[in-house]
């Protein structure tokens, strides 16, 4: 009899398991919220404010999915993940999507059981040094002590760059951004390396005197950051992908959270399709036909999200400007 108990328990667990073995969309609809994996705190991308409300560019992706699926951007729950946890959390189904400033690489796309849906922020790695060291190029950094966050593509690019140029360096690896920047500004390292956008924001917001630090001209890598979903669920993949693109497309069409309610009177058939007044894009995705309008009404377009979250930290649009305005943001057509 006693032997039966664990078996029965095991069987019960198995049943619970099979009950969940369905599409992510159905599972999300059933539980009533999107579980979103974010960072444990990176200003501008995902960070709780003083009142404990999550804010940031990545957080807006999560909210956009909720707006598309439920028509309500608040139906999101956030799971703060460390760099180490992020992939397993997605693989195991603990989170429905990962929006955690993660670089899209081929290794991650193939061997980690996940799919990147696209790019919501284009970045590249650079170096920042104190002006008083009088360094003009990254090629002069031989023997320098470099502050870097471990387990990132940044760390690998750094090693590659110094190896390629036949130079040595001494890494100081600290996982938390706050600590690694403190280490740099306190003089623990000669050089701080991370994505250029990060360097700009760190210099603008944390340096005692921003003019004391220069960002070297070399950009040593491509860092396309984007949300990722589990491998093998194409329907969910589509929803996340197009929710993200809808925000970019809205900016290109000139639709914003302020103008979206007047969009119904627009004569432009593309706008009509976008807000779901004509066509059935939403139905094809398996969500409400007003999905895109809901996203823009509740979160805004990409530009608005950028203005609200990244502009205050000193980020420039740069590459993350629309393709029509000199950047490389380009949404496939919503039709």
């Amino acid at each position: 009899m006693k032997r039966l108990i664990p078996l029965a328990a095991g069987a019960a667990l198995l049943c619970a398991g099979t009950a969940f073995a369905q599409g992510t969309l159905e599972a999300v609809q059933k539980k009533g919220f999107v579980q979103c994996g974010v960072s444990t705190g990176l200003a501008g991308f995902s960070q709780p404010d003083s009142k404990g409300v999550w804010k940031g560019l990545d957080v807006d992706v999560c909210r956009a999915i909720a707006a598309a699926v439920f028509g309500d951007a608040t139906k999101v729950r956030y799971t703060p993940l460390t760099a180490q946890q992020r992939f397993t959390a997605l693989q195991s189904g603990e989170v429905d999507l990962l929006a955690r400033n993660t670089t899209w690489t081929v290794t991650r796309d193939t061997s980690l059981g996940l799919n990147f849906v696209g790019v919501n922020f284009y970045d590249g790695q650079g170096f920042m040094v104190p002006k008083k060291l009088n360094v003009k190029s990254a090629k002069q950094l031989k023997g320098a002590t470099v502050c870097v966050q471990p387990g990132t593509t940044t760390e690998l690019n750094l090693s590659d760059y110094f190896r390629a140029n036949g130079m040595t360096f001494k890494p100081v690896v600290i996982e938390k951004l706050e600590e690694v920047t403190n280490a740099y500004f306190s003089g623990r390292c000669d050089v701080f390396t991370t994505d250029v956008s990060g360097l700009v924001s760190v210099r603008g917001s944390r340096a005692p005197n921003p003019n004391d630090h220069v960002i070297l001209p070399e950009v040593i890598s491509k860092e396309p950051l984007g949300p990722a979903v589990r491998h093998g669920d194409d329907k969910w993949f589509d929803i996340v992908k197009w929710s993200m693109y809808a925000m970019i497309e809205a900016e290109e069409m000139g639709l914003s959270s302020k103008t979206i309610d007047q969009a119904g009177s627009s004569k432009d058939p593309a706008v009509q399709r976008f807000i779901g007044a004509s066509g059935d894009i939403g139905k094809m995705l398996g969500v409400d036909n007003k999905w895109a309008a809901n996203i823009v009404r509740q979160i805004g377009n990409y530009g608005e999200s950028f203005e609200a979250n990244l502009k205050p930290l000193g980020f420039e649009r740069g590459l993350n400007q629309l393709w029509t305005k000199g950047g490389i943001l380009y949404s496939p057509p919503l039709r």
Partner: protein
Amino acid sequence: MSTAASWLRRNLFSSWASALATLTILYLAWALLPPFLEWALVKAIWWAQDSKACRDLQGAGACWAFITEKHRFIIFGTYPYEQHWRPGVASALLIALWCVSVLRTFWRWWLSLVWVAGLALIAMLMWGGVLGLTYVENERWGGLILTLLLATFGSAFAFPLAVLLALGRRSRLPAVRAVCVGYIELVRGVPLISLLFMASVMLPLFLPEGLTIDKLLRAQIALILFAAAYLAEVVRGGLQAVSHHQYEAAEALGLGYWKRTLFVILPQALRYAIAPLVNTFIGLFKDTSLVVIIGLFDLLTSLKVSLQEPAWTGFGVEAYLFAAAVYFLFCWAMSVYSQGLERDLARDGAPRLLRGA
């Protein structure tokens, strides 16, 4: 006057070495204390609209304004701002429960009912969803209450498990003994952080597809499994302190194993082990701080996240001193209590065997 002089002579200047030690200590106090007090109190900033006033000091004084500005986030984490009174009341309730439980007059059977009621009330407050309280998912729980809950539930669930493990380790059945010894030694042999990593990145892969356990719960499970192994060794010490005659007498009465253990041996063994048990609970309370490494929003994490807001970076020393003070307050209270209890029990005739265990 002469008593003071003789006290000084006896306690501070009894020999050359002693006099030298006294003078060295006094000199160090004279050299180090004033600058520290000037930094911590005199030049410190307690209130500020923004961090500018603190930055202007350039480290000459402490920036306690960081703590006053961020105290709600530090203490309540990401819990909805308008609902902060709920974790506040819950924390107070939990601390009150602890305070009541440490008084020996209340060591009655109904205390467990009080706990059940108290915890139910805390769960209701924290989750809500009833009586007009809005529902708050546990991903948003954070700060002090999370630290307290992790420690409380950690102890509450680890304890019965520890008793079973300790009994198993002393069992006459070789397989039971082997399993218990294996478990205890395995867990005690690895650092807590590796168990937390396991709970946070490995456990999800162990479970059937689609079945997930909440991150908070996983960390809690790891803490319970960890604490149980350490507690088990303390309980075992208590069991060993119970005299052989007690075992034999209970057997002679014709009591079966469980009756014998539950009604005769365990009450005595646990009484012997109370002081080291409290010490292990203090350890568990301190160990909850490690969840910062797996990104759970406990007190230390919310403190570190506060430090990340661009306006308030660079006040780490103040922040960590604050954290140290909070942890110290709780642990020190527990440790003073355990020392008092130890004295009481020793006076009441319990063997002094377990001192310092």
